[in-house]
């Protein structure tokens, strides 16, 4: 049980790492946005699942699930809002600037 939990956690952490690397390495804001939200939400989900397994309590598991859902909801909204705002701001500016 604990081993599975740990593995889940570490895989989650790897996703986080991937997101962060994406945030660092990708060329423009849109890509960073994309990489980050996807990877992080996934990572958090795995860690939450792992910890829920490790805790062995339904109550805790429920709470972890709730936290995951809330984070996803927030993250998605944020992602959308940022992207939307960026997109709206883009056409007025220099054509195809690589950095936004």
């Amino acid at each position, binding site marked *: 049980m604990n081993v599975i939990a740990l593995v889940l956690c570490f895989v989650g952490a790897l996703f986080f790492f991937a997101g962060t690397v994406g945030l660092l390495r990708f060329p423009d804001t849109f890509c960073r946005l994309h990489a980050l939200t996807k990877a992080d939400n996934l990572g958090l989900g795995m860690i939450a699942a792992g910890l829920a397994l490790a805790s062995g309590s339904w109550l805790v598991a429920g709470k972890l699930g709730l936290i995951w859902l*809330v984070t996803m*909801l*927030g993250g*998605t*909204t944020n992602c*959308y*809002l940022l992207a*939307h705002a960026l997109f709206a701001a883009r056409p007025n500016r220099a054509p195809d600037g690589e950095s936004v």
Partner: protein
Amino acid sequence: MYGILLAGAMAFMLLDAVRILPSEPSGLTGVVDSQMANSGVEHPVTAVLLNFRGYDTWLELGVLLLAVMGVLLFQPGTDLARVQPLARSDAVLRLATSLLLPLAVLVAGYLLWIGKYAAGGAFQAGVVLGAALILLWLSGNATLVILPPHGFRLILVLGFCAFMAVAVGLLIAGQGWLELPPSQAGSLILFIEACATLSIAWTMAALIIGLQPPVSGKQEGGP
């Protein structure tokens, strides 16, 4: 440059001071533990905050009240009634808000309730609720936030007044100054905390929203 020197000297003095702080405990843990049974709650921090040192908390609510008064000083009418509303947001944010808001209310209630047993309490609950109100306002729907002036001000002073009311009530009942009788301490604390949560929530909202410019139109007086 001499600023850095000054800060350096200060840092030196402080570091030197903490270096020689005694490492053995000299706090009040023991005293708090010995009185926990009489406090009406089970979480020591809440007990200290609302019972042992409740006086401080009352005054702290006063500070909060003053801050919101100071912010609203520049709003006509000292309330949020004439704040320029934000444009209606797009559907995604509205949807998210409509999902997050009830959740936040739930979480606030949960934090308020759990304050009796563990970390949590009026302030944290109030801030969560206040954040939800701000989110609501940000999504362009401010009807719930911007109450009618009298009601709005009443909510702002509610927490501060709840403390006062309890204190006066206890004085009339012959108790000492803010002396909660152990048997009713729990419910009194819950009452105060509930009122304070509401106050803090609207205060937090007003601290942000009150800073927005008022609707254009003649501003009162003017230099």
